[in-house]
């Protein structure tokens, strides 16, 4: 029998999610909106943990906070704390759609209506 027989997806993570972020539940600064866009702005100089590196790589093309959590299969709260760290190191920027006061304009909504019709 394999020594790894208990270590499959059903067994859950070996390392609890909050251990990855050293027990923190809140990121530095503001909470990131679920649909805020994350994009990379710098190159990592120091060693990032594997999950932080995954986030950094996934954000090379802009991606939402919610999509990051789904793709990395991590709880949103954990992703947010890691994003806070990456931002503190000037490696990423997070653009919040709702904080910018950018209520969708008429043109965008009409485009959405047409896009939905075309689905």
């Amino acid at each position: 029998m394999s020594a790894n027989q208990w270590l499959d997806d059903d067994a859950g993570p070996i390392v609890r999610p909050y251990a990855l972020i050293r027990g923190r539940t809140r990121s530095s600064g503001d909470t990131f909106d679920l649909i805020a866009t994350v994009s990379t702005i710098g190159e990592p100089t120091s060693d990032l943990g594997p999950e932080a590196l995954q986030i950094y790589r996934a954000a090379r093309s802009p991606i939402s906070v919610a999509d990051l959590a789904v793709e990395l299969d991590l709880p949103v709260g954990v992703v947010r704390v890691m994003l806070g760290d990456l931002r503190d190191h000037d490696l990423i920027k997070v653009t919040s759609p709702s904080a910018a006061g950018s209520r969708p304009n008429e043109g965008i909504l009409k485009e959405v209506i047409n896009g939905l019709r075309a689905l």
Partner: protein
Amino acid sequence: MDSVLSEDPVALKILIAGGFGVGKTTLVGAISEIRPLRTEEVLSDRGIGVDDIDGVETKTTTTVAMDFGRITIREGLVVYLFGTPGQERFWFMWDELSYGALGAVVIADTRRLTDCFPSVDYFEQRGTPFVVAVNCFDGADRHTVDDVRIALDLDHDVPVMLCDVRRRTSAKEVMITLVEHSLRTLTAAG
């Protein structure tokens, strides 16, 4: 590649609300690629009596899975759908979810119409544009949209429609009605 589009992507958020088991997941799945989103929330005292925390009194967070769907209209314009957690004890999550939302779909089941009262109240109070989609379950009495409007005491401008959340065309119609309603609300507000 158009650099303006890639630098300023527009993301819109639509909430799918309604009572437990009313078809929120089905609706999100009918119109978008659905994926479960794990969140964890700080347990509030509202969880007391519901969450059995005997022996784990220090537990302060609980995991909540939300339905999450994405509709890409074009590159740089994406609509995100979030199924709101149905149980009342997760009400506190709604404030974050509804912040900046374009609007909401409240799904109603005429067999237990009261289940959607809290959602209707919530969006009315917050001023979030919403539509009521009456899911026509097999075996459920067909009520007219006017009956539902009266029973829910809705403002005259709130769209009410019958739908079958399993059908993509029906789900599409609900979403289009919502965005059109949001557009009217937006232009009326100036």
